[in-house]
């Protein structure tokens, strides 16, 4: 049985761990509120852009000469997986869930004989992916200096991705991130961003009343070419916002659990400590009494 001193030491160590996890939980809760607010603030833009894209796409006849971002390269050989993770750990299964989803997709694609490359956003996915798919990481976008996600970063990522696309680096791009549902539930999500996928219902059904002749300036195709890269930036931005909220939510839950576990452990150790202490006292008494009797 452990000595009293050793037990005391363990109790103290667990107590200080509990203080840390508790503080992290509070910080995550505060950050979550902020991240959630900005994720919600970004929604109107994304929704409107989607609506405009849909109405444009239904009007512009997409020929083989149409913008490549919409029609694709005509091939399906090389896939780029853009994996958004966080820069910090201690967020429960948050990062590993995203990486697992990406990994599954990559394995499936490779089984079909396709080439897969990774573009990483954030630091935490690197270790696993570098081990499983060495030499397939084309770039890692460093987000460690970013405190709050802003559109400029999403734009920079989008530009780089489109650059690679135009120079023939890949044919199809998928985006991986965790969609925020609640502090308890974050769903790893996969989304194809290049070529752009139009929901068939949105592009085929005429929008009510707005089907009147719309004037375009400079022209439909110019607007569409201008819009497509922007749309990709917005999708990435949205993924980053959702990810930020999910990360904090996941960390909050994980730290809450850790705090509770530490509490349980302290209780258990305290009971053990008290028992040991009483046992020591009893032994001492027995020794004294038997000593006195022997005289």
């Amino acid at each position, binding site marked *: 049985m452990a000595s009293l001193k050793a037990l005391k030491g363990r109790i103290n160590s667990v107590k200080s761990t509990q203080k840390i996890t508790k503080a992290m939980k509070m910080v995550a809760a505060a950050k979550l509120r902020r991240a959630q607010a*900005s994720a919600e*603030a*970004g929604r*109107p*833009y*994304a929704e*409107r*852009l989607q609506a*405009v894209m849909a109405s*444009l796409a239904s009007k512009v006849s997409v020929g083989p000469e149409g913008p490549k971002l919409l029609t694709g390269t005509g091939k399906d050989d090389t896939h780029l997986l853009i994996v958004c993770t966080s820069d910090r750990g201690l967020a429960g299964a948050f990062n590993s869930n995203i990486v697992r989803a990406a990994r599954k997709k990559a394995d499936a694609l490779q089984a079909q004989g396709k080439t897969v490359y990774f573009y990483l956003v954030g630091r935490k996915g690197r270790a696993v992916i570098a081990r499983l798919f060495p030499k397939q990481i084309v770039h890692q976008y460093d987000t460690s200096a970013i405190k709050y996600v*802003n*559109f400029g970063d*999403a*734009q920079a990522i989008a530009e780089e991705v489109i650059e690679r696309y135009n120079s023939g680096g890949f044919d199809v791009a998928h985006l991986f991130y965790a969609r925020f549902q609640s502090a308890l539930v974050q769903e790893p999500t996969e989304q194809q961003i290049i070529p752009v996928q139009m929901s068939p219902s949105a592009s085929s059904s005429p929008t009510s*009343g*707005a089907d*009147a*002749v*719309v*004037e*375009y*300036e*400079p022209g439909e195709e*110019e*607007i569409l070419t*201008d*819009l497509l890269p*922007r749309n990709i*930036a*917005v999708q990435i*931005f949205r993924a980053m916002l959702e990810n930020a909220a999910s990360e904090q939510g996941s960390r909050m839950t994980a730290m809450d659990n850790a705090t509770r576990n530490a509490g349980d452990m302290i209780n258990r150790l305290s009971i053990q400590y008290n028992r040991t202490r009483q046992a020591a006292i009893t032994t001492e008494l027995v020794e004294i009494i038997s000593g006195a009797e022997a005289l």
Partner: protein
Amino acid sequence: MTDLHFELVTPEKLVRSDDVHMVVVPGTDGDFGVLAGHAPFMSTIRNGDLLIHRTAGGPAERIAIEGGFAEVNDKGLTVLAEKASVEG
């Protein structure tokens, strides 16, 4: 005359949602003013100032915007800009 429903949205937030008299938008091919009942219209915008006239002949509010596009439909005017900074 009814007012024009006007919305200015950036990826980060909904900057403005208001009923105003007229908005002058810096389009790629030149500035254009939008009043209520404008025909459906869509244009990309260049970096410049958005002028919001709250009332007819009243002073204009100026918002600097960067990159994006404007859409006019039967519901009003929606400006999707990448950046918008309200002055003063």
